[in-house]
């Protein structure tokens, strides 16, 4: 057993206690599962005819697959746009021009602290009233707008912490061979930063994919929305919900595993990585950005003196 902070290697008495606790734990889990199944069965949710529709091709081709495609479509467009937004404002926050830096900081912090749903709703009505898009496209456009602004801000912050996690020697080496600050950032720091933040970026994909489900609220016809049509069509709303939840969990779990794999690979190659850790939605990797802030501050002071 690996060493733990909390527990010493168990002796005979502790092992006996663990065996008792194992039995208690198993009984608790069995009791809980049994209760859930009993409750579901009581309302007829476990009847075979409620589940057989999922074995037919039509329910997949008419509902699940179109819903899944819409979910993935919104996520894919948002990811690309968020990457562009993020690189732009991430570099803006690292600019040595004070005005650009402040403006980028305000934009990034603003979109990070406004809920995605609020941005989606506002975008939805904005597009609907101004007829910016075809009527059918308004929900998709609103979902993409909300996801792009929020995740773009997160990516911008990741780029900043990615650059901050690099050894100071990297930028010093770049500057000492005669590159300008901007060249150093673009040629030396940014490529390394993007590698360092790769695992965090993949975990961010999970957040994007989960948040497409918010599109349900603004009538975007994504995966979650299918439960209504399936439920009214086959009157099996609870089984439909369970299958949809399973699809979401399977995709996101796979993505989480990919993020872990990428991180391990990078670490094996001796690269610095930043992860989002356990911080959850809305949180950004905790990397000390004090170094960059100080460098920028020094650059400011130099500029002031030269003036």
């Amino acid at each position: 057993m690996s060493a733990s902070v909390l527990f010493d290697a168990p002796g005979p008495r502790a092992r006996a206690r663990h065996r008792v606790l194992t039995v208690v734990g198993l009984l608790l889990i069995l009791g809980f599962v049994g209760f859930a199944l009993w409750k579901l069965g009581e309302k007829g949710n476990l009847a075979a005819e409620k589940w057989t529709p999922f074995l037919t091709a039509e329910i997949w081709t008419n509902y699940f697959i179109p819903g899944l495609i819409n979910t993935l479509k919104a996520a894919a467009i948002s990811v690309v746009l968020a990457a562009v937004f993020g690189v732009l404002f991430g570099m803006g926050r690292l600019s040595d021009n004070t005005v650009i830096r402040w403006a980028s900081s305000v934009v990034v912090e603003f979109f990070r602290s406004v809920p995605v749903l609020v941005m989606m709703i506002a975008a939805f009505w904005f597009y609907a009233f101004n007829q910016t898009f075809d009527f059918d496209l308004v929900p998709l456009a609103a979902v993409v707008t909300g996801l792009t602004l929020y995740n773009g801000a997160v990516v911008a912050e990741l780029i900043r912490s990615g650059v901050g996690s690099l050894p100071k020697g990297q930028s010093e080496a770049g500057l000492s061979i005669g590159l300008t600050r901007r060249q150093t950032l673009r040629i030396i720091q940014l490529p390394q930063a993007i590698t360092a933040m790769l695992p965090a970026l993949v975990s961010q994909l999970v957040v994007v994919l989960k948040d497409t489900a918010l599109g349900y609220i603004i009538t975007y016809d994504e995966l979650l929305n299918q439960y209504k049509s399936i439920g009214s069509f086959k009157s099996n709303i609870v089984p439909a919900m369970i299958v949809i939840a399973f699809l979401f969990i399977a995709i996101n779990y796979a993505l989480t595993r990919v993020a872990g794999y990428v991180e391990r690979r990078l670490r094996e190659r001796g690269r610095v990585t930043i992860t989002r850790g356990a911080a959850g939605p809305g949180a950004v990797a905790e990397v000390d950005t004090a170094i960059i802030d100080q460098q920028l501050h020094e650059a400011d002071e130099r500029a002031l003196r030269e003036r």
Partner: protein
Amino acid sequence: MGELFAEFNVFAAFGMTILLTVTAAIGSLLIGTVVAIMRLSPVAVFQRAGAFYVNTVRNTPLTLIIIASNIVMAVNLGFNFSKDFSRNNLIWAVIALSVYHAAFVCEAIRSGVNTVPVGQAEAARSIGLTFSQSLREIVLPQGFRGAITPLGNTLIALTKNTTVATAIGVAEISGLMSEMIEFRSDLLLFIFLIVAIGFVILTLPVGILITYLSKRLVVKR
């Protein structure tokens, strides 16, 4: 503009957002601590059950959990807390938010405890402290400091995620925003800014406080 505030009670809606945040924060802290204890316990069954909870909940969209709390738990299975429809939905929204964020609270606590080097506990045992003493005096004080930042980030995320409760008709600010825009579409940008700035006001102090606390309480190693 004035009529907007006269017609719609913006403050009551933000009050509901705060109420959801505070109650769900307490709920998720309770559930999250229990799950964290399970994941940190030496008994494999509890570890597995805790990991299963975290992996499942973390990979499920919050919208789905909130809608399922209404469609599956309240309507289909008939778990009701109140005869009053909106009150019942409010309670289910708090439970759904707590269940969802508990997974993140669990991981925050666990990552906090994991920042404590094994040597600390070994030193505690070697000077003869008992299990509860080493937990109380050595491990938890350090672990708590390591957990401040992720816990604070979870609180900020929770504040913003309360907006999803509108999916089951809880009268919080994003639902009211939708109504206000339908009523005065010419003021769309202004209405959005009011709501957005409201959230900046709610989340910014928490962010500043976390940064301050984590800098002040950081364990030098």
